[in-house]
């Protein structure tokens, strides 16, 4: 038994033979921009990416520079540079870093690189991603304070002319907090324009001070807030159409089949008695046939209310059987060929409106309004509107 105990003791003792753990740390200095801003004084980003210059120094656990001087460690790895904003790292650590910074004797030269369009508090993450001899060291810069995003910042494509403008959200996979309207105290408000079983849609509008109606819409100023459950505010009060979300909203941005939506949201209503006034909702954008040739018009109004005048109801097809989508032809033709083509609008009214669209086939609707929540997968586009109630559908 003693032999086993001694063996065990020796084995345990072996662990003490490992060299003492060391720990490299990086100090990241932002050389440019000269001012980092602060929580109350935000930097103005260009919107298309900005240049940042940093320098990096390596220190050991005792805050001694790893410069190779007598008694000092000597750090000579190349480190990767990433940028952290809106809750995620860009790119992720397994991606190619924004820049590589060679370190010689624990110090780098200033290195410049371009960060993507960023919002909110932003830090530069420096990581030892050396292929060999990695130290697992990491360090972050002081915070650069850019302005927080508005609703339109989450919707507007970087380039309206780009091929993926309809299905690429600029802040996809970022966690945004929309604290208020882009119009601020100048009549700005975030107003709920529709509520459905699993979420709501909101519009960033500019009204008369108060806010007082009427309120104007803005391109890209709409968001689909997908709560999965009946939408509630932070005090567990149900959100209703026409309500002002006075404390803003937050969540993760995702582009779901071409629809930009905010998932796992939180909605903040500070007022003890929420302000509910449907008159604050902006007038719907009036569709015209030119949108089919200029599809960015749909994107500009995504998750907003749109109005279509005098469409003809198409014959019901498999889309109705499968998805409860019935089609309208805004051109007014309503013939089989047009209805089978791309230039139609799909309507989903099931559950919300007690209406059998089969009774309207071939007829002209004087007007129909609905929330635009399309599907855009590459060149496959389905323009879907969701009427909120029978009041949105004017029948012949």
């Amino acid at each position, binding site marked *: 038994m*003693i032999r086993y105990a001694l063996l065990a003791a020796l084995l345990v003792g072996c662990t003490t033979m490992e060299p003492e753990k060391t720990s490299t740390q990086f100090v990241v200095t932002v050389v440019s921009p000269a001012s980092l801003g602060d929580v109350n004084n935000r930097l103005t980003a260009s919107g298309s990416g900005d240049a940042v210059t940093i320098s990096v120094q390596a220190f050991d656990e005792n805050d001694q520079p790893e410069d190779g001087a007598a008694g000092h460690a000597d750090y000579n790895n190349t480190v990767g540079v990433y940028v952290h904003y809106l809750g995620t790292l860009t790119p992720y*650590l397994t991606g190619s870093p924004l820049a590589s910074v060679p370190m010689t004797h624990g110090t780098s030269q200033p290195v410049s690189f371009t960060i993507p369009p960023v919002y909110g508090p932003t830090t530069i*993450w420096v990581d030892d991603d050396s292929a060999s001899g990695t130290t*697992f060291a990491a360090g*972050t810069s002081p915070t650069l304070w850019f302005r927080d995003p508005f609703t339109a910042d989450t919707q507007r494509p970087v380039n309206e002319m780009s091929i993926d403008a309809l299905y690429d959200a600029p802040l996809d996979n970022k966690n945004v907090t929309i604290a208020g309207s882009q119009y601020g105290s100048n009549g700005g408000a975030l107003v709920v324009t529709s509520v459905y079983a699993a979420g709501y849609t909101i519009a960033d509008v500019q009204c008369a001070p108060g806010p007082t109606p009427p309120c104007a819409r803005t391109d890209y100023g709409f968001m689909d807030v997908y709560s999965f459950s*009946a939408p509630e505010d932070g005090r567990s009060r149900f959100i209703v159409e026409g309500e002002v979300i006075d404390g803003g909203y937050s969540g993760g941005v995702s582009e779901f*089949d071409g629809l930009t939506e905010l998932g796992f949201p939180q909605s903040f209503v500070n007022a003890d008695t929420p302000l509910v006034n449907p008159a604050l909702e902006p007038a719907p954008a009036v569709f015209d046939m030119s949108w089919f040739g200029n599809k960015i018009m749909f994107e500009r109004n995504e998750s907003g209310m749109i109005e279509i005048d005098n469409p003809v109801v198409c014959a019901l097809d498999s889309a109705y059987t499968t998805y409860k989508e019935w089609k309208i032809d805004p051109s007014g033709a309503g013939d089989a060929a047009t209805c089978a083509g791309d230039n139609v609008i799909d309507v989903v009214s099931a*559950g919300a409106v007690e209406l059998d669209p089969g009774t309207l086939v071939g007829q002209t609707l004087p007007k129909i309004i609905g929330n635009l929540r399309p599907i855009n997968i590459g060149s496959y586009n389905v323009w879907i509107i969701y009427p909120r109630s029978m009041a949105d559908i004017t029948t012949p």
Partner: protein
Amino acid sequence: MRLQTMTLGVGFAAVVLGGCLIDSDQPDLAGQDVRLTIIHTADIHSRLFPYDMVPNSFDQGYGLLPVNSPFGGIARISTMVKRIRVSAERSLWLDSGDAWEGAAVFNEFKGEAEIRSLSLAGMEGEVLGNHEFDLGTPQLVKELNAWSQFPHLVADYAWEDPSDSSSDNGLTLQDLTTPFQIYDVEGLKIGVIGLGNEDTLLSSYMGNTTLGFRPIDPGTALQQYVALLRPVCDLVVVLSHLGLDDDEGLSASQVDDPNASLPNQNVDLILGGHLHIVTNPPKLLPADDGSQYCVNNDCETLLIHSGAFAKYVGRIDLVVHVSDNGDNADPEHRTRITNFAYVNQPVDSTIPDDPDMANFMWPYSVQLNQDIDLNGVFSYVDPPGTATITRNDASGGDSQLGNMVARAMQLQQGVDAQFAFTNSLGIRADFNRGPLTNEQMFNVFPFENTIVVLYMSGQEVQDTLDFVAQESSQRGCKSQLQQAGITWDMVCRDDPTSSTPCKSIDPAVPDTACAQDTDCPSGDRCDTTQSRCVTRACAQNIFIGDNCRPLDPNTGMPNTDAPVDPATTPCTSLSPDGLYRVAVNNYIAAGGSGFIVLQRNTSQQDTGVSLRDSLTVFLTQEPAICDGMTTAQILDFTDTEMNTKCAVASQCPSGTCTNGIVTATGDSQVCNVLPASCMCAQGTIQQLWGNISCLDETIEAHDGRIRPVFQ
């Protein structure tokens, strides 16, 4: 003498060990930025062996691709954990609970395989989930006591008498769990607090599951332990099985009383589970602790959920700025997370098995297959294209799989009910295209539930469905019930101006008199005819029978969105005074998931017939025909060969394809020529599995028997 020798030996070893600890000096991290990698799993649900599933669009967005099926498996997870550990100087693996229940391995070994394999893989801490209690507290105690090598955390349970029947060799669950654990990770001290689920446990309790404790308010418990740990830990982490809403409720909400002292102000990270969701990007919860630091910085608590069913391993890389003066009680100087990166890595066929873990699991696999014949095939699933027979219909109403389950219950020999109810969450997976195996039946029906027959009055049926509508309205108007033999409108939000608004008195405030809507809780309306608060969700237009809705003239199928026409329907309206013979599962019969009306019914008779067996029998009785073709004609495209797409026929192994379907010679391989490609198959269904039944999209199809209405 023997005892003396052992004592000496142990004493010597202890001295050396003690010296070892003294010698292995930890780095002094004060004032430094250091990297910490947390490995996060949740809701593994017994998926210890790889399994087939069809990833949904969210899963595919996270990189879980069909081509990399099957998914999950502890041997792969073990590989991933090892890989992460070698790429991280400091790592810690934490799990958010519900490792138990969900696959046949649990039914067979009752938790042993889960606890042993996770211990071997190196899990370092887990909060107890509600499904850890599925076989009762005594079984949990037994397995933890016998096998567990990692801490089980739960801070929000008040334990009952430790001398109760939950003990194992004198040990109780209280002895085997701890409210928190402090980890020293290469000099970083991480305090982890476990918060278990409350609501589901209450449901389980109603469902006659033995617990041995009662849950207490998690916020109160959290506050207590955060106060204890904050001064002595660099980071405070909550390991939660509460669910997302409750996790968010731990946050210092911007809209609740901003002056209130809320418990997460000193919590750095919440790792959640229970709802099987992925939060990528992570949620950032406001956590202003009133310090100048938080004035100058956005103080936030990270909230991360990493999915379920062993589909993902979450990796969280943190940059932690360690307190410069070691005073973690001082918010101006305490250690903080200054940066983070999160990714949920798919557990799929691209990950090799850890051979040690694979060897360890091998005996379990052998015995499981001996006892259950997991690969036995009794039906073939053949929906159109890449579709599945789904448990959740896109409409939110009845689903094809739910309809099958309920129909099997209704028609079970000896049951012969007028209609049947089962809870949607009791059905845990879809039927994928291809051969339906016994293993899949365990994945779909992991619970050992049985069929209960009872007699319900019409009013009880109304009350039950009102409850379902109210519960469903809180879940995106997705029905929490599946059924057969009855049709109704699930009004998730009524139109107050209609002629038939909801009139169901809110059970939460049944005695509250009201004169106007503002007298009622948010979401309720005051029904002035009753002077009571009524919910805006209720059941309406309830009819007994099948195919109650009018037929669509184009398809000949029920128009799922059309109201029942009382004048033409073959069904009969529910009579409040009527008496109905109903089949339900024993979980909701005992009040599980809040089905209190059923619990109160005293006419219950448990048939002892399991839902799984009932459905199996029902499915085997279906004909061997899908879409008008017999199984002797239908090719199987689901085996390995299915994924071999070829542009030309010659790419099919041994295949010769001309003008459609041609059987190759020799090895029974066949090719089905498609316009642009050719897919290879092993043979016809009948050739491969005999004269089994075939399930296409028409069998118990979604027919609007539950019609969601949101006005």
